[in-house]
């Protein structure tokens, strides 16, 4: 039966990356500090995971300045939405077969 299960996308099957994607899927765009607060993560770890998601083109990251402070804004891409949808439907099949 296990052969019927599709493998869960390893990029998304990680606590922090999944948390980031779940937040970004619900909003239009979010700043770094907001993601840090919502996911309850450290700045270092969050940066690393954001870069991974950006490398996969699941999110787009914009760097700018506000009042002379660097500002990082993230939003989910169409590719990211598709990957997230697939991940959720695969997850559903795992859970319903249990």
């Amino acid at each position: 039966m296990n052969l019927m299960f599709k493998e869960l996308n390893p990029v998304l099957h990680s606590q922090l990356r999944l948390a980031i994607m779940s937040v970004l899927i619900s909003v239009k765009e979010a700043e770094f500090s907001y993601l840090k607060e919502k996911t309850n993560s450290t700045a270092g770890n969050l940066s690393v995971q954001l870069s991974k998601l950006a490398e996969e083109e699941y999110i787009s990251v914009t760097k700018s300045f506000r009042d002379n402070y660097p500002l990082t804004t993230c939003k989910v891409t169409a590719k990211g939405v598709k990957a997230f949808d697939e991940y959720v439907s695969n997850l559903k099949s795992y859970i319903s077969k249990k």
Partner: protein
Amino acid sequence: MEKKEKQLTETESFELIQKMISSAKEEMEDDSFYYLIWGWLVFVASISQFVMIRMNVEMNFLGWLILMPAGALATILYSRRQEKKQRVKTYVDWIMKYVGIAFMVALFIVLFFQFKLQLNAYPMIMMVYGMWLFVSGASIKFKPIIIGGIINWILCIASFFFAVEIQILILASAVMLGYIIPGHMLKNKFENLKS
């Protein structure tokens, strides 16, 4: 840098997604400022015009001339300050921005071509108000504002059958019922959420 994470189970994944989505969905901006400032300014402008008409003051539209630009300036300053504070933009924020622009454009057209509309400028203003209240109320899922929009449309239709003087009073009650009362209810809702 990356910490070794424990492997997520499928159920944990599901719970995490649910938790994050519902926490991000809670993100709501308190937009009551816009309803309150416009509600009160239009209310004061229309009542003052009514009183001045009764007192035979020639420049009876003076209140509008002063209060409307003041409202526009306050709206611009406030929304800029809010945008700076905002760390997350939801789809509702995005829709509200465009609905707000559409409202301003429609209102500008009505006010600018008042002379063409002649006696019926006030009903047209209420029609535009109704549209903004109905759509913006639905976007933020706040029923009193949606109802306020419907009231504005009803009063718009009714006011076609009255003289200008009475139309001004109808407009004042339209903003009281469509903006001011629902605006205060919205403000209270956010204050209760905070506490």
